[in-house]
Structure formats: structure tokens, C-alpha cells
């Protein structure tokens, strides 16, 4: 047995083991966070939490029902703005783009990604809140939507580009026009990655509080429609966590747990719906 081979095998074992350690690290961090949230906020999770409005400090009961609904509304609006722009923009870059324009789009997207969330909040404030002279769910949705665009766009482009050229060419050889190729062959081939990207973007904006402070503001009461300020889980967490009251701290941790749960549910639902849709296509 020559030594070089033994060395290579040893390196193989060690490096692969290390990768396992890395994965374990990442997963254990999440379980640690979850455990912490459950430990500190679990007591505050009861039926009231999901159905009642917030109460002032010292009074028992009270919940974050309006914040949960508010977050859901904000995320819906954000997806409506961020996903189409990101997705179709990515399609353009991957399939149609010329060299300079595509470069420009990519560059600006990366720039947009690096803008601090509070600066995006300031931007949304200037273009939505000031003209209408009041805070609104719409403004919050716009801010979050803008934040979703870069991740969605770059990842869509990346995954579409990973689809082998042979698939393109096969479809075209069968006579399909370009857009048909893209819609029916390329995108389904890349859908996993694209969905991951969209869900990642959604997860990211779900936890942002800074851009909402100046756009959706917050609301102790139910928010009707899209033009009133609305409570949201991240802002409630922020407000309660830096307050002096232990009861509010517990509610903040519980809200964190609920937020994660919301994102988890959306994740599951999206994957389920998408996979059924895709398999229906393939049959």
C-alpha cells in the first residue's frame, strides 16, 4: 500500500468528517435558538396570544392577534411586489440578456441587497408615507418587497443558468419557440432552486423590524384595509424586548416562536403546492 494513497484516504476521511461537523454546527444553532425561545416564551403561548389584542403592561391576558395578521398581510404584499420583479428579472438575465444591460442589472441588484434595511424603510417612507401623509400597511409592504427583489433575482438567474444547455437545445430542436422552452422546460427544471430562493427571501424579510418602524408603524388595534398602520410581529418583538417588564419579555420570545412557526408553515405550504403543481404538469 503506497503512502500517497494512505494520505489521500486520510485527508478524505478528515475533510468529510469536518463537513459533517459544520452541518451539525449549523443545525445545532437553530435548535439552540428554538430551545431558548420555547424555554423563555413558551409560558406566554396560550389561546389568548393568538386571538386577543395587546394589553397594557401588568394586565393578564392580551395577545398578538393583530400582529400575526399584520405580518401575514405585509408578507403577502411584499411577495406580490418582490417575487414577480425578482423572478421575471432573473428570467430575463438568464435567457435574454445582452452583455452590458445584464451586467448593469446584476450590479444594481447586488447594490440593492447591501442597503441596510432601515435605509430602505427611509426610502419607502419618502415615497409612500409622506405623499399620503400617514403610515400604512402598503408602505410596509413596499419596503419589504424591495428587500425581497435582490435575493429572488440573483438566485433565479443562477439556477436557470445551471440548467444544462442540452435541455434548451432539445426543446428548440423539437420546434418550441423560445418562451415556450423557458416556460415549459427550463423553469420546471430549475424550480427547486428558484423556490428555495423565494422562500429564503421571504424568510429574511419576515423578521425585519427596522424598515417597518417608519412605514407600517404599528397599531395596538386591528388594522383595516391597506392604508392604516398595522402591528407586525418583528416590531412587537422589538418594542417588548427593550421594555422593562418581564411579562412583555416573555411575550417577545413567544412572538419570536410564532414568527418562526409562520415562516415554517409558509415554507411547507409552498413546497407542497408547488410539487403537486409540478407533478401535475409532468404527468
Amino acid at each position, binding site marked *: 500500500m503506497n503512502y500517497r494513497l494512505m494520505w489521500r484516504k486520510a485527508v478524505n476521511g478528515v475533510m468529510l468528517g469536518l463537513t459533517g461537523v459544520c452541518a451539525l454546527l449549523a443545525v445545532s444553532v437553530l435548535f439552540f435558538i428554538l430551545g431558548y425561545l420555547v424555554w423563555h416564551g413558551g409560558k406566554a403561548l396560550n389561546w389568548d396570544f393568538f386571538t386577543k389584542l395587546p394589553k397594557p403592561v401588568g394586565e393578564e391576558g392580551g395577545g398578538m392577534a393583530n400582529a400575526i395578521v399584520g405580518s401575514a398581510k405585509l408578507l403577502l404584499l411584499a411577495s406580490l411586489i418582490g417575487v414577480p420583479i425578482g423572478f421575471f428579472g432573473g428570467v430575463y438575465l438568464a435567457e435574454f440578456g445582452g452583455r452590458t444591460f445584464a451586467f448593469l442589472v446584476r450590479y444594481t441588484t447586488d447594490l440593492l441587497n447591501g442597503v441596510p434595511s432601515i435605509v430602505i424603510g427611509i426610502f419607502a417612507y419618502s415615497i409612500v408615507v409622506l405623499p399620503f401623509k400617514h403610515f400604512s400597511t402598503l408602505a410596509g409592504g413596499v419596503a419589504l418587497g424591495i428587500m425581497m427583489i435582490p435575493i429572488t433575482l440573483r438566485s433565479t438567474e443562477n439556477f436557470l443558468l445551471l440548467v444544462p444547455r442540452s435541455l434548451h437545445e432539445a426543446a428548440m430542436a423539437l420546434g418550441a419557440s423560445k418562451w415556450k422552452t423557458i416556460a415549459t422546460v427550463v423553469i420546471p427544471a430549475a424550480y427547486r432552486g428558484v423556490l428555495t430562493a423565494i422562500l429564503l427571501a421571504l424568510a429574511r424579510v419576515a423578521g425585519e423590524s427596522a424598515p417597518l418602524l417608519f412605514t407600517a408603524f404599528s397599531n*395596538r388595534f386591528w388594522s383595516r384595509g391597506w392604508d392604516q*398602520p398595522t402591528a407586525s410581529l418583528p416590531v412587537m418583538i422589538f*418594542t417588548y424586548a427593550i421594555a422593562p417588564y418581564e411579562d412583555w419579555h416573555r411575550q417577545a420570545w413567544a412572538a419570536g416562536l410564532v414568527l418562526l412557526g409562520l415562516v415554517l408553515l409558509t415554507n411547507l405550504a409552498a413546497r407542497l403546492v408547488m410539487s403537486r403543481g409540478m407533478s401535475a404538469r409532468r404527468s
Partner: protein
Amino acid sequence: MIIVKRLAMLALLLGLGSAAQAQGDPMLVNGAGATFPYPIYSKWFDEYHKLHPNIQINYQSIGSGGGIRQLLAGTVDFGASDGPMSDEQLGQAKVKVLHFPTVLGADVPTYNIPGVTQELKFTPNALAGIFLVKITKCNDAAITAPNAGVKLPADDIVVVHRSDGSGTSYIWTDYLSKVSEEWKTKVGKGTSVNWPVGLGGKGNEGVAGLVKQTPNSIGYVELIYAIQNNLPYGQVRNSSGAFIKADLASVTAAAAGTAKSMPDDFRVSITDPVGKTAYPIASFTWLLVPEKISDGAKKKAIVDFVRWMLKDGQKFAEPLAYAQIPKEVVEKEMKAIDRIQ
């Protein structure tokens, strides 16, 4: 087809979200500003809502400066601030802005020195010196002098202050500016200043957390926060020479002295006041209301609320560790409410 179905679902969701406002819906009044009085304000607005179910007053704590700015921009109906508006800011307002003191609060020096369980006494010079980096060791003469019998180590002091702009910092720096000429010229007073030294903690939570974890540290937090979290805090010497521990009585005493000399617009600083039992680092917090409110219904709601707050609302203050406003000031405010049109 599937895409069409999905779009239809989306449209339905959107429709539900924007359910039209029915007749007789409650009126929403928006206010923004200081974080310090947020707990008592949320209690008041909730109680008021119980009495008047068709009026919803939504207050959010985005900071005193934010409250002032949003009021000037017209995006909220009223503001709240821990520090009074400056003349410059008042000049920027399209409509004149009235100040209404609501409750009293105080800043206390909290510390963490290993081995020290007693309550420390601080002189104004000691506090100013520590924050100006003139005093760097825990056992400096200025600190040990009033604390005979307490063993203080010879280690470096770690200073902790607020990193976010806040009324709490305003009160603290306002006090330091009054007791130290050097502080006044070198640093000044404000919600955010150029601190000569120290770690910045975000919110009271941040400062308290840093102090708790860092040996030989000293910082400042709101009185309510210290009480609610059982933080050790020291006594401060007032202008009469007595070492006072901050509590509701001593904070109210600080305001009582100024009741007679209260200016008509209620913009006054009560740090380092006259009074034997007064705590030196206390302050009012104000509601900022425009003198002219065009929406008649909103005006009525706000005016009624302020009246209620001054009469019935004050009793909610003490259970939450806020100090009530002295009666003389309340009477003056009641008269001032009539100026709102």
C-alpha cells in the same frame, strides 16, 4: 390553468385583506414619540378606549426625536417627547405646538462592582468626572469620599451609556451640563452626544445588560427600569447637599419646586432643582399637541383625552412606577387645554 387558479386565490386573499370599512367604525388617532413613558401611555389609551369604545388612540414609541419629526411632517396627530422641543423646532412647525407634561421620570446610576453590595453615594463631581474620563479608577478619591466603609477596588472603570438617541440620555446629559461646566462646553446635552468614553448599549435593556455582565462598570437607566429589574442603583447628592435615592416621592419633590416658576409653555428642565428632598436627575415628559386641529372629531378626542389624563389618568401612574405631576401644574395645564382649537 394552475397559474390562473393561483392568481384567483391571491385576488381573494387581497380582497379579504381590504374589507371595506363599515359605517360607525372606530376613529383612529395616531401618536408617536418617546419610549420612556410608553408603558403608562399604553395603559392610559387602553383605559380610555374602554370608556370610549369608538375612539382608538394608537401610540407607538419610535423615540422623542421621531415623534417630533412625524408631528412636524403631519403623519401623526400628536407627538410625545422626553425633552422639550427647541425654539428652532418650534419655528419649523406649520402650526404652533403645545407641550403638556404627563408624568415624571428619573435616571439613576446603576453599577456593578464585585464585592460591593452597599448603596453607593455619588457626588455631581464624581459622576461628571467618570463620564469625562477625568476619574478612571474605582477607588478614586471623589468616589470613596462619601462612601466611607466601602471597599472599592483599584480597577479601571468601564463606562456604559445609551447608544440609541433617547430621552434618558437627554435627562442625564442635561444634568451633567448643569453640574459641570466642562461637560457643558465639551459635550453638551442632547438625546445623542459625542460620549468621551464608554460602551454603548441599545435601550435600557442594553445598558443594564452590559452593566450586569461587566465588572467595575457604571451606567444610567430609567428609574422604572431599575425598579422592575431589581438593579442596584446609587444615591445622588442634590443641590442642598443631601444624598437622595430616587423614588416616586423624591421625583415628585423635584417637580414641586418648579411648579411656581413654571413657564406658560411648560418647557422646563427640572434637573438639579432646589429642594431638600428633591432627586436631582428627574424630568417631565410631554405630550405635543398642535394648537389648531382641523379635524373636529379628532380634536375633541384629543382634548377630552388630555383632560381625562390629568384628572383620572394620574392615578394609574404610581403602580407603574411613574411619579404624578404636582397639582399646581395640573391646574395650569387644564387652563392651557382651552387654547387648542
